C-alpha cells in the first residue's frame, strides 16, 4: 500500500506547505509585495521553538501562541518602516524584491551571529515516539500535529477574511485598492495588520519545519522562500485559499515521486508548477474564481 501512504503523507505535508506559503501569499495579495525574507521568518520561527524548548522546556504548541504577538509587532514595524516606502515607489513589486532581498540577507547574517551556522532542532519526541495509525498506515505524530496546525491556521484565516469587518476590508484591498480607499479604508492600517499576520503564519510554519524538514539553519531561508513561492504560484497568486490547494498539490507531487521515482522528487513539484503555468497561468485558484 505504498500509494496509500504517499497519499496520506502528501496531504499532511501539503497542509504544512500551505502553512509555510500562506503568509507570503496574503502579503502579496494585499500589498503586491513579494516578501523575499519570508523563508527567513520561517527560519526564525524554528529557532524560537528550539530555544524555548531547550532553555525553558516550552512545548512547541505553546510556542505557536507565543510567536504571535512578537510577529504582529515585527510585521507592523516592518510595514511602516519598509512596506510604505515600497508601496509609494513606481514599481512596488520590483522594489519589494530588492528591499526584501536585502532584509533576507541581513536576517540571515544576524541569525549566523546569534545562533551559529549549525542545524538546530528539537531532539526529543515531543509529539510521541510511536507512529499513529491512519487507515492502517503508521504516521509520525509530529506530522499530524503540523498538518493540524496548518489546517487550523487556514480555517482561522478563512474566518478572519470572510467573516470579520477587517477581513472584508482586507479582501476589498486585494480586489481593488483604490476603490477600497475610496470607501474610507485606510490601506496602511490594513496592510500593517496583514503584514503582521503574514509574518506570524511564517513563524508558526517555522516551528513545524523542525519536524517536517528536519531542523532549521540560518541559510535555509532562501530555499524556503522558493518553495513557498512555488506553492502560491500553483495555487494562484494573491489567493490565500488557493494556497491550500497549492500546498496539497505540492505535497502530493513530492510524496508520490519520492515513492515511485525518488530521483525526480526535487523536480516534480516544479514540473507541475510549469505545467500549471502553461495550462492555467493564473494558478489553480486564480482571479476568475477567487471569490469562491
Amino acid at each position: 500500500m505504498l500509494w496509500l501512504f504517499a497519499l496520506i503523507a502528501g496531504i499532511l505535508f501539503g497542509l504544512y506547505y500551505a502553512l509555510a506559503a500562506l503568509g507570503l501569499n496574503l502579503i502579496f495579495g494585499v500589498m503586491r509585495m513579494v516578501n523575499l525574507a519570508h523563508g527567513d521568518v520561517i527560519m526564525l520561527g524554528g529557532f524560537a521553538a528550539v530555544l524555548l524548548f531547550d532553555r525553558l522546556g516550552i512545548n512547541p504548541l505553546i510556542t505557536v501562541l507565543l510567536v504571535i504577538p512578537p510577529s504582529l509587532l515585527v510585521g507592523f514595524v516592518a510595514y511602516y518602516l519598509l512596506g510604505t516606502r515600497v508601496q509609494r515607489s513606481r514599481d512596488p513589486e520590483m522594489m519589494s524584491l530588492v528591499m526584501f532581498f536585502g532584509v533576507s540577507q541581513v536576517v540571515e547574517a544576524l541569525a549566523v551571529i546569534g545562533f551559529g551556522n549549525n542545524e538546530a532542532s528539537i531532539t526529543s519526541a515531543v509529539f510521541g515516539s510511536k507512529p499513529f495509525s491512519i487507515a492502517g498506515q503508521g504516521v509520525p505524530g509530529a506530522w499530524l500535529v503540523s498538518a493540524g496546525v496548518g489546517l487550523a491556521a487556514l480555517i482561522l484565516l478563512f474566518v478572519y477574511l470572510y467573516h470579520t469587518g477587517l477581513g472584508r476590508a482586507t479582501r476589498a484591498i486585494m480586489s481593488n485598492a483604490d476603490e477600497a480607499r475610496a470607501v474610507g479604508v485606510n490601506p496602511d492600517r490594513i496592510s500593517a495588520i496583514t503584514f503582521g499576520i503574514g509574518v506570524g503564519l511564517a513563524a508558526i510554519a517555522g516551528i513545524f519545519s523542525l519536524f517536517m524538514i528536519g531542523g532549521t539553519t540560518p541559510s535555509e531561508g532562501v530555499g524556503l522562500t522558493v518553495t513557498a513561492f512555488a506553492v502560491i504560484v500553483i495555487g494562484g497568486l494573491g489567493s490565500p485559499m488557493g494556497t491550500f490547494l497549492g500546498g496539497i498539490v505540492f505535497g502530493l507531487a513530492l510524496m508520490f515521486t519520492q515513492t515511485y521515482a525518488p530521483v525526480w522528487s526535487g523536480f516534480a513539484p516544479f514540473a507541475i508548477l510549469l505545467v500549471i503555468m502553461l495550462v492555467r497561468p493564473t494558478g489553480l485558484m486564480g482571479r476568475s474564481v477567487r471569490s469562491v
Partner: protein
Amino acid sequence: MPEQMETCLRVEGLGAGYGSLQVLWDFDLEIGAQESVVVLGPNGAGKSTLLRTLMGLLPARTGSISYFGRRIEGMRTSQRVRAGIAYMSEVGIFPELSVEENLLMGGYSLPRGRVRRRIEELCELFPEVARTRRGPAWKLSGGQRKMVGVAKALVAEPKLLVLDEPSAGLSPVYVNSVVEALARTMGQTGPALLVVEQNMKFLALAQRVYVIEGGRRRFRGTVDELQADDSLRRAYFGLQGA
C-alpha cells in the same frame, strides 16, 4: 448655482497630474447642497483625474477644495469619506466580494447597525440589487454592476455623491435605467450629485453643466445655455443626433 442654496463643494484653481504629466489645469467648480451637476468631456479630458483629486486619491498640485466651507485638499481619503463624500469609480465595485459585502464596504466608515438598516432601505429602492444580493459581484452584468456601485456609494448616506462615468460600458437601455434610478434616489432630500460623463442622457439629471476639455474648463452654465452654444452643441449633441 441658485443664490439662496448653501455651497456644498467649491473647487478653485485645481491642478493635478501623474508624474511629469499635468492633466488638470486651474479648474474651478461649484456645487450647491442638493444640486446636481454634470461635467461633460471627451475621453482623456481629465474627468477622472478631477474626481480622483477631489477624493484625495491623487494629490492636488495647486488650488483649493472647500467642502461646506472646510478646506479638505489636505485631508486623507478616509477623512473625506467620513465627512460625507461618496465616490463610485469607473469599476465601481469589488468584483471579488459578494454584492452584500460590497454594500457593507460602502458603509465602512459608519456604525454597523446603521449600515444594516441603510442596506435594507436601498434594497427596496433598487430591486435589481436586492435580487442579486447574495451572489458574488463578479457574476453581475455591466448594468447590475453600476446599480450595485451606486447603491454601495449611497450606503454611506453621503452629502455629496460623486460618480465617474456611470454609463461606461453600458447598453443604452441600461443607461436609461441607471439615470432613472439616480433620479429616483436624488429626489428632494437627496445628496448633491457630481457626475462626470460623455453620455448626454445624464443631462436629464443636471441642474448645471460644466464642459472640460484638455484638462481645462471650457464651459459653465445650464443645459439650455449649453444647447445655445453652437460649437458645443455640434460637438456634444450633434454627434449623438439628440
